[in-house]
């Protein structure tokens, strides 16, 4: 497929589900902009380990600064925000999501829909999978002077959630988090309402898993990374545990099943990708500042991503986890414990290996982002291990989440091209000598 000369590749056409998601998000930001007038309380929190059902059960409105940062990246605002934060003394070495958020606050706190975001009434510091979260909300507390409530989620170094870990989280929920949220909401938590919301979450989670697993088909009806980041929007943010989420995922699943029936691929910046030359597994977050350009580097080569780890940061539903209305707090604890970056490196490697095999991938690619030590520290060992275990070649590229200075388009494109050529070479070798698997050499 021909290259497109445009500076920014076109966005893919929108499916009905995507339009629906856009409406849901617009509605949520409308609610946020009216929150003070409507007497609603606003809680800022993070994606991994979010307690959305709990917030919704108490009529609290969530804001997720990570989502605002990524949206700022996509809207090409993040470069300015980061510069603003660095001017105010924030180091060039640290996570750019944090600096983007701080810069956005200093620039008037205008959210992705162009409306001003309300200030938080409380910061819910759910500390899952990343140490930067702790510092991020300390910084926001400095900006807003509002209360913070901490939920410390233990790490799973061996990929095992022990009863002691679960108990620790439940005790924090019962004794600290829920009382703080109740105080803010001005009412007691109705546990039946919490359970009802968790039951709604389950339904949406089932449909999301069906969407992920659809990528085991050939051609894959989805792109599990570039398209996948849209699919996780509602369930990773403010909608888990709502009827809106159920409706969205039902619609998405129906669209995906229809594509399977018709033998169609996903919509990409290069149109519908029915012909798929490469099947990839990707580790690491995407770059947001040149998102469509980045996707285009793959779609123009008919490379589809069938599974990715970034789309699991807000929950490993495809590994069996479901929220359980019969044990609401334990279930929230298990959810927080099981987010992808809360798993030890050996478990992350096991999971990626499983994806490479189960999704029948031709290649494995790491997008290592400068911002995020939570993801990035250890990725070079992940690369070696996956190559060793699967024989599938690995590629390694470097960029950043929202700092445009670290998206070297030509360099990344060269690396992607060499990586795909390596996959071609391996395929040719395997056709010529089908009994021998090719050497795994990464670029």
């Amino acid at each position: 497929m021909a290259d497109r000369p445009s500076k920014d590749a076109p966005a893919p056409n929108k499916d009905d589900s995507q339009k629906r998601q856009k409406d849901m998000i617009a509605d949520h930001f409308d609610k946020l902009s009216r929150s003070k007038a409507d007497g609603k309380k606003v809680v800022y929190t993070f994606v991994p380990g979010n307690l959305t059902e709990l917030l919704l059960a108490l009529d609290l409105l969530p804001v997720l600064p990570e989502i605002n940062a990524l949206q700022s990246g996509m809207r090409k605002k993040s470069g300015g925000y980061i510069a603003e934060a660095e001017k105010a003394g924030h180091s060039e070495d640290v996570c750019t999501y944090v600096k983007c958020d701080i810069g956005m606050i200093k620039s008037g706190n205008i959210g992705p829909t162009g409306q001003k975001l309300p200030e938080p009434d409380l910061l819910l510091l759910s500390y899952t999978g990343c140490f930067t979260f702790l510092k991020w909300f300390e910084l926001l507390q400095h900006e807003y002077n509002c209360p913070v409530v901490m939920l410390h989620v233990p790490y799973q170094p061996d990929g095992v959630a022990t009863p002691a870990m679960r108990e620790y989280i439940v005790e924090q929920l019962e004794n600290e988090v829920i009382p703080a949220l109740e105080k803010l909401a001005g009412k007691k938590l109705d546990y039946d309402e919490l359970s009802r919301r968790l039951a709604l979450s389950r339904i949406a989670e089932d449909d999301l898993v069906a969407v992920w697993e659809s990528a085991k088909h050939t051609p894959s009806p989805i792109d599990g990374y570039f398209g996948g980041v849209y699919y996780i929007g509602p369930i990773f943010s403010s909608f888990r545990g709502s009827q809106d989420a159920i409706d969205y995922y039902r619609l998405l699943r129906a669209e995906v099943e229809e594509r399977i029936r018709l033998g169609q691929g996903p919509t990409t910046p290069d149109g519908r990708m029915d012909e798929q030359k490469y099947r990839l597994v990707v580790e690491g977050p995407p770059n947001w500042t040149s998102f469509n350009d980045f996707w285009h580097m793959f779609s123009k080569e008919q490379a589809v991503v069938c599974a990715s780890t970034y789309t699991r940061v807000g929950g490993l539903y495809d590994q069996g986890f479901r929220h359980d209305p019969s044990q609401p707090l334990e279930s929230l604890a298990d959810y927080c414990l099981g987010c992808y970056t809360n798993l030890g490196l050996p478990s992350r490697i096991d999971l990626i290996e499983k994806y490479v095999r189960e999704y029948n991938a031709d290649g494995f690619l790491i997008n290592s982002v400068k911002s995020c030590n939570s993801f990035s520290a250890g990725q070079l060992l992940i690369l070696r291990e996956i190559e060793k275990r699967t024989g599938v070649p690995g590629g390694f590229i470097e960029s950043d989440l929202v700092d445009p200075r670290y998206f070297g388009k030509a360099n990344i494109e060269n690396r992607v091209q060499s990586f795909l050529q390596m996959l071609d070479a391996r395929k040719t070798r395997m056709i010529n000598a089908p009994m021998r698997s090719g050497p795994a050499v990464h670029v």
Partner: protein
Amino acid sequence: MSSSDFVSQVAPIKAADPCGALLQRCRTLVEDHELNHVKQWKAANPGAFVMGHMPIYAPRALVEAQGGLAVAVFGGGEEVDIIRGDSYFQSYICHIPRSTIELGLGGQLDVLDGMMFPSICDVIRNLGGMWKILFPNKYSAYVDLPQNFAQGIGGKFYAHELGRIAEEMHKFGAQKLEPEKLRQAMRDENLRRAAIGKLDELRRTEPHRCLASEAYLLVRAGGGLLAKEHAAMIEEFVLAAKKRDTRPRDNVRVVLVGAFCEQAPVDLIRALEKAGCDIVDDDFQLGMRMIEGDLDAEAEDPLLALAMGFIKKGAAVASRYIADEVKGKSLIDKVKASKADGVIFAAASFCDPALLDQPMLEVAMDEAKIPHTSFKYAENTGQFQVIREQAGAFSDAVKLWGQVE
């Protein structure tokens, strides 16, 4: 760099210096990247368990209680050439994990039966996972330090965590944990803490008798010593230092913060001293000073007491959630307690906890009208001229105007 080059560059030892021999011993220990002193200890204590640990804080008393020796691993500094380590970490990750991997793959850490990775940042956390893969026959423990500070919640969790580690160490060959032995190990830790307290007091009251670079060597040298032995060494130094024939200097007094994990080269500390700064407080090797007060060594449940030491007396460091205290208060208190004129923020490049903390601390210093300056370093930084000039300008400005424009 050879050991003699290093010694000659670090600090001149006067023949008549009553602390000279001790400081020489400390230097030898600090430069012992082959861990020969640990090997000797192990040979003298056959079957004993040797547990390495990354900065900042690790429950060292637990290791001693189980008949073992805890060994602080502070990376490779400027002396270790990185050959393999760089191929494990991207350029935008700090230096200490790559030099630690280098030491591990190079066999210098073979004497360690296990490694503890305390939960202070994502890099050390992930390094713990890498260790499990690269050294599958060694014990690797992630120490999940609580961020909830209620006894019945975070205290209970951490005591359980310590119990788990004790059992796992036992499975790898350490003695079984017995309450009385843990009490004794905590008494020994208290001795070490008291000795370090005296050393710090000497630095604060008479910095000319104990340079920061010397205090640094003294504390760091104990990273691979039993607490009691380390305490005795420091006590001996404090007594000897009081006999030193030195005179007060016209230096500015500074507190240095942010260097709690990857260590600054000793020459860098010397460069700051030469630039006219008496570092009267710092957070190098913070682990040894992490617990600000005695552990309750007579408690009925010593494991809980060890946990509560961290919960109730843990220092306000960047990796710890400061629940009820105003950010920066602890640093302001330190500045006041040490009668410092200013603060130097010195963080390792790419160190998330230190660099994310710094802007908040800087605001707190501004509000308290405490002069401050900042720079970054790496453990293998070789050139200090720029830092020296910056520190010199800072010291002059503080002397002239009391604060920096």
